[in-house]
């Protein structure tokens, strides 16, 4: 059963140096507060996994938490580049960043395989692209019935997956709705999981389109209202598009980034 914990305690216990860590959320419900806590606790050598390493991973990469990135689209949605990501890849600052690069379809299926207890997934994908040669975790596979050649990708099994959700009950059952992306798969694929929530409630009322993660497949739940900002939690907040735009200027410059890191993350401390 999931334990209700503070964000600080949960990150301290569940996220370890050298871990493979997935923070998921497809534009919606991105666990920014948990990302900042990982930075504050000074985690190093992480393999960061995420379909769309947007601003939250730009921050973790700039802060020096990451050694590897497994991803499929690294940009600031609707704004432009991720400058910390680019600085790491193009100039090795603050350290080198090894890439394992896939497509969205491949990443989604890798999580599906992980959630399904399978070592690999099959898709129609990648063929004819340079990703086939560049990425070791892409392999051909032949249909045993038709002889057709398709593509296999190995399962993703993060050491820990972190997601944000609208709410949980006091037993640790988690409920999220709206665009729920690949979060269910990412949690079920992981060895450990942490869910930050907008609200802790006595009872989860069903909501159309909701995904419920039962307490017994979640390791820890932390009550972190606003924990997705500047992303959003449908029904609780709207996306702070201006913050995404502002990030472009902050992140373009190493000094500006470092100043932001000091003031907005390190000095801020964990949420109560």
């Amino acid at each position, binding site marked *: 059963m999931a334990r209700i914990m503070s964000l600080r305690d949960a990150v301290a216990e569940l996220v370890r140096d050298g871990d493979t860590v997935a923070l998921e959320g497809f534009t919606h419900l991105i666990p920014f507060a948990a990302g900042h806590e990982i930075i504050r606790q000074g985690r190093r050598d992480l393999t960061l996994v995420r379909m769309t390493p947007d601003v939250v991973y730009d921050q973790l990469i700039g802060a020096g938490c990451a050694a590897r990135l497994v991803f499929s689209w690294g*940009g600031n949605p609707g704004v*432009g580049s991720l400058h910390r990501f680019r600085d790491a890849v*193009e100039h090795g600052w603050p350290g080198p960043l090894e890439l394992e690069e896939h497509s969205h379809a491949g990443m989604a299926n890798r999580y599906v395989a992980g959630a399904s207890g399978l070592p690999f997934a099959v*898709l129609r994908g990648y063929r004819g692209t*340079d990703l086939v040669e560049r990425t070791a975790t892409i392999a051909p596979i032949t249909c045993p019935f038709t002889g057709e050649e398709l593509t296999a990708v190995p399962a993703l099994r993060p050491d820990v997956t972190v997601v944000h959700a609208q709410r949980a009950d006091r037993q640790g059952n988690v409920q999220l709705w709206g665009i729920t992306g690949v979060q269910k798969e990412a949690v079920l694929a992981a060895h450990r999981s942490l869910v930050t929530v907008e609200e802790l409630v006595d009872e989860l009322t069903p909501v159309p389109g909701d995904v419920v993660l039962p307490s017994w497949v979640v390791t820890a739940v932390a009550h972190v209202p606003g924990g997705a900002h500047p992303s959003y939690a449908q029904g609780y907040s709207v996306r702070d598009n201006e913050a995404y735009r502002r990030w472009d200027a902050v992140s373009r410059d190493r000094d500006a980034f470092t100043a932001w890191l000091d003031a907005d993350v390190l000095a801020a401390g964990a949420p109560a």
Partner: protein
Amino acid sequence: MSSAETTTETTAETSAEWTADEMMTVAAARQLHDGTACFVGIGLPSTAANLARATHAPGLVLVYESGCIGAKPDRLPLSIGDGVLADTADAVVSVPEVFNYWLQPGRIDVGFLGAAQLDRFANINTTMVGGTYDAPAVRLPGAGGAPEIAASCREVVVVVRQSPRTFVRELEFVTSVGFGSGPGDRERWGLRGAGPRVVITDLGVLEPDPSTCELTLTSLHPGATVEQARAATGWDLRVAADVASTRPPDADELRVLRALNATLRAGS
């Protein structure tokens, strides 16, 4: 997020009555027919698709890779995962489902793609430019949904500004396949969609030659010339014998497009 976003940083050239971006968007919207299903990336493709739905194609089905199927936003979404998409969709499904059950089987009629680089066979690079893969001069966002959109949609529309920097002789990285190195490659790789049907630029419209698959300039936007198009192309551009002239944006298209773009600014 579709790789179309990689082109949004450049500012558009303007003409007296409309901008080059507006002409591109209107030309792209006209490619979308009523009652078809369109896989939409954020940025210009989303604007074009919503313009089409608000004008000549009210029954256009918008499918966003965030899992929103049949979204009917009354304003332009600010991201692929904008709440307005979930609120107005016929169904919101998981990201694995949108790729596996909806895109992969070839249910989607049209996919929109952008490009940082494009070659004569409409292959696309959105991965890196300059240097090496491990130490690129410019690291781009990468593949996103594009490789499988390019493979699986019944047909693809590419929207990209035309310049020697984007229209290159040889891609530095093939992120998404157009026609490979010519006829037969798509079939050989098992790509079941027909591939790029049209490339829309700020200068005109290119279409693959039916026999060689090589992109051929078939229409020029008002004010653009064949010489401009050739100069903006890093290979010896084929030009159709009878190059058409793109119909300029009409008043209705411009009015709706500008109203849509105003919702975008209002939302910031």
